[in-house]
């Protein structure tokens, strides 16, 4: 095809593009996937029975503080990495702050607990399923984000995939808190982080395959 013809074909039926379409599209992808994840929790796992009481307690908010702050950071990174002229991210280390804070809480928790109960603190009731559930619940959100990226232009597919993976993992973990009754910071530090890490891995693997443009 001649380049002039191409330009003509691209110009007919030109539709206007609103400002901040990138942000809106990513939000839409996350919400779209998040609705499915939420449905999976409500219909498949059920809310934790003591949710109304737990939401007033500190351990619930420690979990949410951890997953929500990681989610916000990861979504910001995802938006950033979706533009072709994105400069290198200078603040990936900021994502370590929630991790470090939680690690300190976990350390103080362990200090206050007799050594014989450490294993119970670490394993809780659900350590076997927690990481895999977080990973499973992150899949719809990751798929939503991959849909978002069909109109976006990430310069680095692996990085964008990793950021999208963390965004989906942290969002899924946030919703999973509605089900998960675990209260110990040590549990969250290990198993939630592992689940989100698996989501990052999946995102990094899927990015180069499904985000190409």
């Amino acid at each position, binding site marked *: 095809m001649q380049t*002039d013809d191409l330009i*003509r074909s691209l110009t007919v039926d030109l539709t*206007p593009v609103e400002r901040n379409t*990138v942000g809106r599209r990513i939000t839409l992808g996350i919400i779209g996937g998040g609705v499915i994840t939420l449905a999976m929790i409500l219909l498949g796992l059920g809310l934790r029975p003591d949710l109304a009481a737990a939401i007033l307690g500190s351990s619930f908010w420690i979990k949410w503080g951890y997953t929500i702050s990681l989610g916000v950071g990861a979504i910001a990174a995802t938006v950033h990495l979706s533009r*072709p*002229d994105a400069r290198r991210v200078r603040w990936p280390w900021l994502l370590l702050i929630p991790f470090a804070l939680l690690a300190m809480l976990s350390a103080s928790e362990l200090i206050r607990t007799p050594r014989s109960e450490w294993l119970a603190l670490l394993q809780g009731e659900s350590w076997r399923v927690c990481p895999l559930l977080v990973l499973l619940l992150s899949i719809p959100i990751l798929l939503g984000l991959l849909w978002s990226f069909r109109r976006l232009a990430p310069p680095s597919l692996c990085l964008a995939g990793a950021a999208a993976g963390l965004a989906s993992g942290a969002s899924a973990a946030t919703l999973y808190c509605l089900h998960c009754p675990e209260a110990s910071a040590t549990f969250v530090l290990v198993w939630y982080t592992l689940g989100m890490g698996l989501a990052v891995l999946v995102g990094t693997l899927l990015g180069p395959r499904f985000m190409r443009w």
Partner: protein
Amino acid sequence: MRASEDQLRIMMIGGLDGDAGAYSALLAALVPLLRSFFGCRLRGADDDVEDLVQETLMAVHTRRATYDRDRPFTAWAYAVARYKMIDHFRRTRQHVPIEGLEDILMAEGFEDACNARMDVKRLLGGISAKQAQLIRDTRIDGLSVAEAATRGGMSEADVKVSVHRGLKALAARLKGEG
């Protein structure tokens, strides 16, 4: 050259707002820029260059939502072109020599060189064709006065006078512009 970035940006914003005229002018203006961008990097593969130009135009079109109106437009457009070129190398499994890698990855230097070329072209366009040609021959392409005279079919004195007057005219224009 500021004006060119500004012009392109205004056309792009017009295109984003749905102005088909501005948008097709933008795409047409990008074609020569992209041709030299890819031409410098894929020496001698003209079919590939034209393919990449077209792929980049399509990417600019389908991904135009990722352009942020508050940011420089040429940096965005060259970032799209750079991605398309790296993708091309990846597809053709071609290995890029490490010495050339800098040129490929650095779009910024290219923009400057490209803008400088556009400046020269624009300035030389402002003086008489004969003077411009002789300045190009003797000062840019590096011909000697004798060679330029033979090529232009004129005397050496004529060449010297024309180049001198042309440079003077250029200097006057630059002072006027500055």
